[in-house]
């Protein structure tokens, strides 16, 4: 699993609960080191071990933990770069939803060996969408749910989201857009430092 993904888990635990709790997770997972390197590749089972350890250490259900990681990625000041790159997807939340199909390609353009699961958005009624997630590794669905919820806030949109698990690595996210301009939302300028 790419270091960026492992690093996201580390960042979430350390920035939310403190460095000591993260160190406890690394011990529980029998990691043998304290910090993931963002630009290195690690065996996939290592990521699963860290997630299992975080579930135990933080006393959270696995899907809930993954969703919180998604929210962290899209909204925490320490992860501002991710939020900005996501905002390049479009001017409105609907544009953003439609840009998700391209997300794995966009990620690969930035970091060529970063593999994300395939995403496909379908709109089956006005304002009602299904985002299907299919990948090799389990857990992206709930994490993406967190990302979507945080990004809806970022755009100031009011949405209802629901996760349907459809087997390991396969998920469907049901998205209902109630109002696209519900709240002010956060500013985003192309030139950065907004």
């Amino acid at each position: 699993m790419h270091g960026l993904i492992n690093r996201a888990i580390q960042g979430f635990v350390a920035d939310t609960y403190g460095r000591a709790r993260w160190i406890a997770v690394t011990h529980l997972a029998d990691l043998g080191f304290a910090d993931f390197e963002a630009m290195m590749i690690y065996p996939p089972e290592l990521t699963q071990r860290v997630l299992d350890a975080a579930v135990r250490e933080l006393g959270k259900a696995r899907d809930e933990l993954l969703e919180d990681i998604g929210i962290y990625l899209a909204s925490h000041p320490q992860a501002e770069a991710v939020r900005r790159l996501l905002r390049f997807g479009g001017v409105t939340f609907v544009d953003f939803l439609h840009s998700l199909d391209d997300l794995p390609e966009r990620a690969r353009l930035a970091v060529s060996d970063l593999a994300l699961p395939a995403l496909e958005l379908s709109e089956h009624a006005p304002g009602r969408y299904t985002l299907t997630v299919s990948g090799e590794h389990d857990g992206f669905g709930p994490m993406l749910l967190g990302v979507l919820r945080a990004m809806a806030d970022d755009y100031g949109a009011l949405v209802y989201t629901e996760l349907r698990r459809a087997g390991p690595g396969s998920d469907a996210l049901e998205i209902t857009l109630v109002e696209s301009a519900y709240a002010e939302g956060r500013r985003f300028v192309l030139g950065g430092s907004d």
Partner: protein
Amino acid sequence: MEACPHILDVLCPLHAILDPEGRIAHAGPTLSKLRPGRDLADADAFEVFEVTRPRHVRGMAALLAHAGQCLHLRLRDAPRTKLKGVVVPAPGGDGAILNLSFGISIVEAVRDYALTNADFAATDLAVEMLYLVEAKSAAMEASRQLNLRLQGAKIAAEEQAFTDTLTGLKNRRALGHILERLVVRGARFALMQIDLDWFKAVNDTMGHAAGDQVLQHVARELVEATRGSDTAARIGGDEFVLVLRDPGGQAEVARVATRIIRRIETPVEVAGRETRISASAGSALSWRYTRPEAERMLADADRALYASKAAGRGRHRFAGQDD
């Protein structure tokens, strides 16, 4: 031609329609955004823009002579944003359409004018380009951080590989490298082998922990008795080597040796007991050789050291010294 501006506003929002005299008849929405305080309509295009390439293009005739070619332009007042452009004669033959893009200055332009996605045509790759610039910069920064950490780890590993862990002095490997470099450079240096006397007795009667403390004590004395440019190494159990750079003459080297032996002979308290040891030393001087070699100098210094030991310990001799 009447509907033309509206079409162009969507297809290429950074454009200007010029009348036959070179005045701006219509400015696209993004172009207007570049000069928010100023109404560009009716302004002389050649007062607003300077054509920098090709040179000496001023006036409609000169401009249209380059129709279809890549033009380099710049806004005349600040911020003097550089632009790329292409001009085509307007349909019907009166005036021209000048389409513009930011080219490589896009990153500064979006910052200077607070442009948003809506300021670019839907088909324009500008936003993708900005995304890439930002994504690549973030990835590059992560890689740079990794490189810095790896380099730090490499330096630490090398340091460790060349350090005697008990005393913190250089080890035999480090000494080999240092001597090679000095010899290649033709430097003037003294090589002093030092062997502790009565150390085995400390080890046998007081234990290895006490022995280690004595070795650490000796190491400190060696560092204190030499200069920063000199090297102190531990190359065996109780065997040390000093490399003295530009030590002056033989007399100065002898003085250093005596000082070191006296310091080592000063009793120290180890594990609550007063401990006495001594040291014997032998030195080889690089300037005594026509072509100094590290191996040979080490062997000569070692012979001098054994002569010191044989002569009753607590002494120093030079290689080739007869008495």
